[in-house]
């Protein structure tokens, strides 16, 4: 666990701020002077997890770098909803080139900044499509060259901007426009997809971490930590999508919480390719609680019988819990 938990009163560090804590234990988001790197008026859907995640990450990085920061963006929701010409929602220098080349552009920007010698840091960011599929070649190159860039993937598990198509980050059994809930094995097939954090670790990056919009203290600590390293770093942020997943717009944070607390989205950090810490689950829940809340998994719950697919998804969650040591002690069932 990367952030220090203050546990002994009221809401401790579970809430964004806490008037009882001193400023150093409050989040950047609790500050009236946060950068709002992604400001109001953007065109993201109601309850957008990605808009939230991007502001969390960039505001933290802005504080960590004293505002000396440039962002490079892949194509995707985040790019589209923030910059419909002639408007921009970004309050930091920001570049967009193509869907697949954000990592390569960031490499070039980092080189240029090194030449200019002002110590300007670079963040590249994209959705899971631009990261795990289309931009993966450029990203792997940035990783292996160890270019001084923090690459942030906002993972909403599909191509939401273009109409909810499957990506290689879409979870098994999820219904998308290209993996409909029909046939013997409805939804996205088991055995497909990839874990970008584990692939990044295989490049032996100095720092790899996963974070989620429900645990702000943890997320901010990881961004701050990442900005303390030089070289290529990778942060994978879980950002629920009300539109693509099919849940009410007010449940974005709750869904992110359930994903982590059931074990399907493990929160961990890795240094030089080794997992060094994980954020323990606070109140463990069965995967049912997470899946039932989303229409993309509705086909698992429309019969009278329990769907065996839920058992397979629970097994994935249990495997994460064991692998990343997400439960103190023996890792008992919920």
């Amino acid at each position, binding site marked *: 666990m990367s952030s220090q938990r203050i*546990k*002994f*009163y*009221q*809401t*401790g560090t*579970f*809430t*964004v*701020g*806490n*008037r*009882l804590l001193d400023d150093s234990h*409050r*989040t950047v*988001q*609790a500050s*009236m002077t946060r950068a*709002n790197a*992604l*400001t*109001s*008026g*953007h*065109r*993201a859907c*109601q*309850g*957008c*997890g990605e*808009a*939230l995640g991007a*502001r969390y990450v960039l505001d933290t990085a802005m504080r960590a770098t004293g505002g000396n920061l440039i962002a490079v963006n892949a194509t995707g929701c985040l790019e589209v909803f*923030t910059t419909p*010409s*002639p*408007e*921009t*929602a970004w309050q930091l220098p920001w570049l967009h080139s193509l869907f697949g080349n954000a990592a390569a552009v960031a490499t070039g920007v980092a080189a240029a900044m090194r030449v200019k010698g002002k110590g300007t840091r670079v963040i590249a960011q994209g959705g899971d499509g631009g990261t795990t599929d289309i931009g993966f070649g450029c990203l792997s190159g940035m990783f292996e060259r160890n270019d001084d860039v923090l690459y942030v993937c906002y993972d909403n598990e599909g191509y939401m901007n273009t109409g909810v198509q499957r990506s290689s980050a879409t979870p098994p059994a999820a219904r998308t426009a290209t993996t409909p809930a029909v046939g013997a094995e409805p939804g996205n097939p088991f055995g497909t997809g990839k874990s970008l954090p584990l692939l990044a670790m295989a490049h032996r990056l100095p720092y790899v971490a996963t974070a989620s919009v429900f645990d*702000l203290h943890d997320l901010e600590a990881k961004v701050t930590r990442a900005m303390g390293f030089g070289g290529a770093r990778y942060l994978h942020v879980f950002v629920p999508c*009300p539109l693509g997943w099919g849940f*009410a*717009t*007010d*449940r*974005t*944070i*709750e869904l992110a*919480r359930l994903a982590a607390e059931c074990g399907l989205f493990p929160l961990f950090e890795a240094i030089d390719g080794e997992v060094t810490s994980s954020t323990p689950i*606070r*109140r463990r829940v069965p995967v049912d609680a997470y899946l039932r809340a989303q229409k993309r998994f509705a086909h698992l719950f429309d019969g009278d019988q329990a769907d065996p697919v839920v058992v397979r998804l629970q097994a994935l969650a249990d495997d994460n819990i064991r692998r990343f040591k997400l439960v103190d002690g023996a890792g008992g069932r919920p």
Partner: protein
Amino acid sequence: MKKPFAITLDPGSSLHNHTGSWRTQRPTYVDRLPPCNATCPAGEDVQRWLYHAEAGDYRAAWEAILDDNPLPAVMGRACYHTCEGACNRAQLDEAVGIHAVERFLGDLAIREGWPAPAPAAATGKRVLVVGAGPSGLAAAYHLARLGHDVTIRDAMPRAGGMMRYGIPRYRLPREIVDAEIERIVTMGVRLELGVRVDDLPAAMRDGGFDACFAAVGAHLAKRVDIPAADAGKILDAIGLLRQVEGLGDAPLLGRRVVVYGGGNTALDVARTAKRLGATDAVIVYRRTQAQMPAHEDELREALEEGVLVRWLSTVKEMGEGELTIEKMTLGADGKPVPTGELETIAGDTLVLALGQAVDLTPLRAVPGVRFTPDGSVEVGPDLMTGYPGLFCGGDMVPADRTITVAVGHGKKAARHIDAYLRGGAYEPAAKHAPAGFDRLNTWYYVDADRTVQPQLEMARRVGTFAEVHGGLDETTALFEARRCLSCGNCFECDNCFGVCPDNAVIKLGPGKRFRFDLDFCKGCGVCARECPCGAIEMVAEEI
């Protein structure tokens, strides 16, 4: 402006795009009535004073209590804390130990010598308060704060009423009672002791009082006829407790004491008897434990101290060193029915603790004053009797007879008397909707078990009148205060400010809470869902 090659537009900010137009529902900050406040008979704003205590601002916390209740140190000990019975935290782990924090604050104020707030400018109106018990003292305090000139008269040699002559000192040490009364006297309240008022209208007229609040309590022991070989062996509970407080002769109880009754007074007498050296203290009660009116905690503590209880029994006869009791059974209607089965138990004295009646003598001849069939004084919602300017409260009027209700009556009467003296009517503020447990997002609250108050060891408990429960120290009191969930009212956790994907919550700074920026709020509702305490509501927009 000359633009670079291929650039035709200036960059604009997304702030031109008012996404608030998308909204079909808007978030609204609300304040709700937490269950602790809702159930407090003294009308304390428990959550508000805990809020100050949470931040370690004990003086502000104590002063917030004093807005409603002038006796925090007494209340933290002798109140049966209905607030804790209603506390939402009980559904999470255990209720917040509100009384323990209140006692800590009350004791701290005594130790530090914090004065009562300064009274308002003098109104020139004079008010007579009859009875220096919790109700009379509370009324006097609030009236003095409002600028009235107050005189309290009480028939007893010392002030405090049942706080002195009813509740035993192992539950309520007398120096605490003295200190809190002294603070009220220091505000300029005149205290005339050993003065019995038998004719209220005359006392008001002769003393030039514009209004009167009578709260003389209920101290006439109810009796039943029990055939006895020696009537001197039958005592009444109130008389005995007064004797223990030094009124009249020292009590002669003998070694084996039988107490008849099932209320808190019966337990007080039994526990007092133990402390006076009785080897046996047996309570005889005609019903079962489930029906016992005494407070559960008091019964538990009495049993811990070796008090015995004979359930479903009545006393038939008092002999020499023994009593005859009859076993009862519960009838279909839940009432006890005699079985005719008799039993003899040992007993040197029998103490009757069968409840108390109000001494209505001072009110009998007052024109316009009416009484209820069970012997209480009839009052309106403003606590005024049928005689203009004469108000009654505490144990004299129909209500639960507890110290907290009495203090609440004192405050209520003071507000109505104040309005009456100013020629108006007091309108209490409308109450907020309740803050139920189902409105909380409990994930955010830290797990924290209730702090346990220290208790005197058993040997010293039964041998002396030393206080049974210890207080919390600053660390534990602070911890306990911070267990408060702040149900239904913003406590500035910054969650709404942080979780808005549209940056549409404006933080106004410490103590000033937040505001929604409706130009940009899309109405997603994340803030309302993630508010720990349920202080945000989504309201449909008129479209």
